[in-house]
């Protein structure tokens, strides 16, 4: 009861949530070199080309480092190194491969503060999240798949399932090191070798991971990191000696890769865009639902493919829910990612900020009503206020397209059938949320939602043992769990 009483008051004015700054030290990120080459065959090497890209701290717009734009020749060199390493690596007993992965998991844990700070600086996400979510998840993923390496006979893919060979992996900027872990851990556990290209706005933790591979004594060429933009990615996925392509990113790029691989024997797994519905019924626990909605769309600045970007609220509780949601949004702290109290950090790049700005402008132009809490934004860096749109119709661009930012579109429904119809009215099918106290309704909805992950009375939960991936145009293949092995085995 006391909780409800508090929630009814404008808590922000009471000063209850005034916090002194609690900054993490940027120096904890360790030494950042002024320029980086690729990590090929166990060594950092220069690119064959002269083009260099810059990665900036999106919270300050300061350049952190230069890194190489990978050329076709660089990619070829990396694939050759991975091919050469494949024979010995795949022949190694699974129990020995496992020990390398366990070593990596342990070193990630040991260096997690350093990696968390580095990730926050390069990506713009709050230290609270890199420290408490990204890094623990990275270590857990390596730990989980390490255990599979010598148990593949029992994974349900027949006796002694074979690895595919060289995996070309292209990952996005929203969870740089975690996406690396999701790709590299199952690939190595199953006996493949990899060439991984991190995103061009967030290469630093992948390059730091190369050092961890060295500390772990991983044989040369088993993991290769080639940096660069989409051109490098395209060269990697097109390389004729790559046997497996794994991509996480946008649906248009996923489509292009699927087309590029047509007629080849390369195995492909895609984890693409989403436009998840977070569905709140009139009997839902409102306070918990509000926390779930906030976590669903404002976690990681909304740079989450499975973000709950469409709130479907039952008409009868719309006002009550939106009032509570606005009160909660008013307490979100936007600002310095290295401040341990920050909830919403910097938008990853100027380009992404421009896209969010453009789509939200469309939202207003198409007649939806826009609301954001008052909050001061830093004068430099890329920032976007947590934003709510009400009066959104299914045809609006902000209800159909992935914004990939802290922007929530609110739609209403009257019956479970209408909620289902609206939730499934998208070419995407990555995730969905259901909030209700009625168990049979949860199961009825979960059964009918066309989505690869359904969170009921919770949202944005992840675990290495839990398969993740989409229906329809959100891609195919699963990452995580026993299912995640299949993408790297010849089955």
């Amino acid at each position, binding site marked *: 009861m006391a909780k409800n009483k508090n929630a009814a008051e404008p808590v922000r004015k009471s000063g209850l949530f005034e916090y002194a700054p609690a900054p993490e030290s940027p120096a904890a990120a360790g030494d950042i070199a002024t320029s980086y080459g690729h990590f090929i065959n166990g060594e950092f090497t220069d690119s064959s080309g002269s083009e260099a890209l810059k990665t900036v701290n999106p919270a300050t717009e300061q350049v952190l480092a230069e890194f190489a734009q990978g050329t076709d020749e660089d990619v070829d060199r990396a694939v050759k190194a991975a091919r050469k390493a494949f024979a010995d690596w795949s022949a190694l007993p699974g129990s020995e491969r496992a020990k390398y992965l366990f070593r990596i998991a342990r070193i990630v844990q040991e260096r997690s503060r350093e990696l968390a700070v580095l990730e926050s600086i390069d990506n713009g996400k709050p230290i609270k999240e890199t420290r408490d979510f990204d890094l623990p998840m990275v270590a857990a993923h390596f730990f989980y798949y390490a255990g599979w390496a010598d148990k593949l006979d029992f994974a*349900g893919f027949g006796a002694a399932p074979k690895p595919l060979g060289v995996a070309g992996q292209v990952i996005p900027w929203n969870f740089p090191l975690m996406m690396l872990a999701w790709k590299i851990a199952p690939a190595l556990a199953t006996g493949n070798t990899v060439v991984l290209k991190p995103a061009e706005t967030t290469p630093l933790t992948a390059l730091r991971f190369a050092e961890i591979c060295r500390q772990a004594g991983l044989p040369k060429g088993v993991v290769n990191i080639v940096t660069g933009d989409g051109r490098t990615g395209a060269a990697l996925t097109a390389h004729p000696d790559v046997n497996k392509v794994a991509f996480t990113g946008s649906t248009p790029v996923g489509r292009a890769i699927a087309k590029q691989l047509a007629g080849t024997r390369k195995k492909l797994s895609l984890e693409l865009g989403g436009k998840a519905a977070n569905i709140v019924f009139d009997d839902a626990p409102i306070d918990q639902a509000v926390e779930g909605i906030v976590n669903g769309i404002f976690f990681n600045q909304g740079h989450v493919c499975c973000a709950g970007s469409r709130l479907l609220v039952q008409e009868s509780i719309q006002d009550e829910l939106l009032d509570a949601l606005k009160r909660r949004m008013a307490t979100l702290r936007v600002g310095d990612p290295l401040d341990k109290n920050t909830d919403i950090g910097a938008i990853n790049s100027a380009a992404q900020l421009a896209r969010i700005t453009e789509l939200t402008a469309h939202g207003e132009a198409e007649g939806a009503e826009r609301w954001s809490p008052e909050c001061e934004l830093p004068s430099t860096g890329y920032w976007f206020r947590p934003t709510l749109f009400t009066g959104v119709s299914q045809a609006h661009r902000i209800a159909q397209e992935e914004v990939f930012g802290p922007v929530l579109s609110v739609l209403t429904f009257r019956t479970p059938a209408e909620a289902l119809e609206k939730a499934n009215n998208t070419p995407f099918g990555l995730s969905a949320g259901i909030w209700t106290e009625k168990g049979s309704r949860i199961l009825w909805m979960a059964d009918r939602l066309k989505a690869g992950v359904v969170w009921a*009375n919770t949202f944005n939960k992840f675990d290495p043992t839990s398969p993740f991936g989409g229906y329809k145009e959100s891609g*195919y293949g699963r990452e995580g769990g026993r299912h995640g092995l299949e993408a790297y085995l010849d089955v």
Partner: protein
Amino acid sequence: MSDLSTRLDTPARIQVFKTYKLYVGGKFPRSESGRVYEVTDAKGQWLANAPLGTRKDTRDAVLAARAAVKGWSGTTAYNRGQVLYRVAEMLQGRREQFAAEVAAAEGLGGKKAGALVDQAIDRWVWYAGWTDKVAQIAGAANPVAGPFFNLSVPEPTGVVGIVAPQTGYGHSFLGLVSVLAPVIATGNTAVVAAAADAPLPALSLGEVLATSDVPGGVVNVISGRTADIAPTLASHQDVNALDLTGAIAADGPGTATALEELAADTLKRVLRPAVDPAAQDWTNAPGTDRLLSFLETKTVWHPMGQ
């Protein structure tokens, strides 16, 4: 007189020929084009005029398949198993007819053809038994590190376009059954592009399905040019997956590469043809790979607490 009619005929009377028709939405329409093409046996003797199915026929079939998804995927696995078993029962009673069609289509002796039909019947039985077991081998209770109930279950992908096998020993019927049965066993619906040169067993299978409690629209069979039918399936917005087993064209719009490119536009799940489709022996025992190819894994989380 063709081989087929010779086998089925008695000297005393003139045989009644069968008009082969498409199988769409549980009905047996002629092609909307009003056109047919000549089907011959392995020696080039005329067997029958098969409907020349068109792009429009194919689109109609996709509509029927889509309409059937809700009902078929919603039946219990136990019920689907009984329906598939019923297909085997019906087929058993028409063994000789199919043996004659297979013998003519693949140029085999009656004994070999009969053995292939027997295997096709047994394959329906095998997949009938899988319907209520596949979720137990493909699903999982996941031990997540937190107070959550977490369950992964397989669900049907939806409408699957099948380019039926056109080569390999037993392709005309055992091959067809081997690709079709796993698709519908898991609750998907199908549009089959029948083997262009040997469509008669596929068209006759429609008659068996229609009398086997398989709801109309769950399986649709189109005969005609693969280069017309397959690209329509590959580019159709309402087809979720594509089985390219029989996409063996060397050039033109029906090549596996061209079809996979079309499928990429809507990110269809694609099962590629074998490296050497002509070397496939359809009498080989199937594994679970086809059964697992047209499933989506859905993972549901719920907190645990008081």
